[in-house]
């Protein structure tokens, strides 16, 4: 490489300062702005920029809205300007910008001249990167939704094919054969066919309830839970103790559906993985929140690094459902100490429904 003179290097640096797409600020030890490059000027609101140029404002705080710490998305605790010991070689900062509102930047802040205490603060716009990430996330979500949909269809299709169609075919065969039977044999065959048809009705009813329990729409959460838990007990031999403090209260449609589905998933998870013979479910209202606890005293798991036994989508789906209705979902579990799923959903009183009832 050719040795370049100091002058040439100076010229390079000035060009970089002027033409860089990164915003560059030079600051003194007190965090006062000494200089800023054209990219930096582009970011800042014109009125603030004017004040900075006139010297009436000299602090970053006039447009900085905090950085992302371990605890908070936008924090001013342990500000990077006032914490020389901290490592701020790469962090995320939120700035109030011209036209775009408060947006995140990738920032770095470090001393470049210890003698005169000069610091440099550099920023790179993260909007594009965030958008890419968001798209990626959205695409993954769509993919998972489609997969889950297909899986559910497969389950229903199999159920229809294996139980409903088979039983119908066997009934048909029974009917055909019965033409050639003697009277006493015929009577027995008819009672058997009756049994098959009864079972078939039960199967179709189960499929329909599993898809969408009518009792949820007609009678509300508590009734739907009771029916479902009775089914769980019969199918899996596991008792679900329901303690409900909401009696026949009705809630918004989407809230009832989400709470029902989340509870269903939590209970099924306990059935599948906890290795228990009882599950406790508690549902109540407190402080304008609908609260649900699903607790088992089974195997439990490490919440930090769970071993995925199923699709790994269950908990993810529960959290998504909770967020969609403005609620929050918490999972408490420890190896050998059981699992508790806690859901809290804000509820508003519905004047219209109150009048109706």
């Amino acid at each position, binding site marked *: 490489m050719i040795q370049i003179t100091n002058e040439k290097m100076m010229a390079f640096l000035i060009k970089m300062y002027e033409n860089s797409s990164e915003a560059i600020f030079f600051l003194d030890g007190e965090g006062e702005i000494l200089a800023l490059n054209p990219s930096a000027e582009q970011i800042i609101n014109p009125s603030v920029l004017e004040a900075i140029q006139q010297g009436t404002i000299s602090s970053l705080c006039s447009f900085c809205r905090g950085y992302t710490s371990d605890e908070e998305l936008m924090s001013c605790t342990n500000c990077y300007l006032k914490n020389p010991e901290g490592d701020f070689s790469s962090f995320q900062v939120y700035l109030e910008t011209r036209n775009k509102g408060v947006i995140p930047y990738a920032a770095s802040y470090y001393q470049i001249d210890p003698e005169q205490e000069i610091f440099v603060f550099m920023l790179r716009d993260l909007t594009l990167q965030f958008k890419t990430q968001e798209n990626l996330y959205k695409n993954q979500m769509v993919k998972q939704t489609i997969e889950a949909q297909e899986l559910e269809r497969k389950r229903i299709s199999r159920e229809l094919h294996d139980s409903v169609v088979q039983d119908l075919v066997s009934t048909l065969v029974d009917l055909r054969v019965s033409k050639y039977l003697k009277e006493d044999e015929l009577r027995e065959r008819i009672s058997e066919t009756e049994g098959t048809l009864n079972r078939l009705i039960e199967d179709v009813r189960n499929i329909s309830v599993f898809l969408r329990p009518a009792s949820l729409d007609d009678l509300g959460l508590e009734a739907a839970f009771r029916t479902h838990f009775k089914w769980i007990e019969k199918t899996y*031999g596991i008792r679900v103790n329901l303690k409900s403090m909401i009696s026949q209260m009705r809630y918004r449609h989407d809230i009832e559906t989400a709470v029902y589905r989340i509870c269903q998933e939590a209970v099924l998870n306990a059935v599948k993985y906890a290795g228990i013979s009882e599950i406790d479910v508690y549902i109540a209202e407190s402080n304008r929140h609908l609260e649900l606890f699903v607790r088992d005293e089974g195997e439990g798991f490490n919440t930090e690094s769970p071993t995925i036994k199923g699709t790994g989508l269950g908990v993810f789906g529960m959290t998504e459902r909770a967020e969609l209705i403005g609620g929050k979902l918490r999972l408490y579990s420890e190896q050998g100490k059981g699992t508790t799923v806690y859901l809290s959903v804000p509820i508003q009183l519905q004047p219209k429904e109150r009048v109706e009832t």
Partner: protein
Amino acid sequence: MEHFHYESFLEQLRNEFELDVAALAVCLPEENHAIRWKYISGNISENYRRIVLYSGKGTAGLVVKTGKARIIENVKEYYSAGNLYEHPILVSEKIESFAAIPFFKNQRVCAVLLVGSRTAGKMNQVLFQEIFSHLPEKVGSYDTGELIGN
């Protein structure tokens, strides 16, 4: 025949072949042909009392539907963690290998005998054949040995 003691039959079977669990599931025409575990020996849980199966559902339901014996030598290998819960008797009794054998009445499957071990590999084809040939022609009111297609 009315007073056949199923429990002692199951216990004898269990002891003779050094198995952990023996149970009999029975079809109940009066309950919409539901299938329940009515007699059991060697159980560690009472969950079996609550289980109500239908043809095609659960271990007993599958045998009722197919009319064929089912021999699983290693439950954990055969069923994934996400499928095992569909066979609650295996979960609650911690069964690791088993055979489920159909019992008949008028050529229809009316009961299912489950003989299982909490050790994988304990139940296998050889032991199954041994137990199967050991079974009397009639167990209580049920006929044994009419294995379709076997």
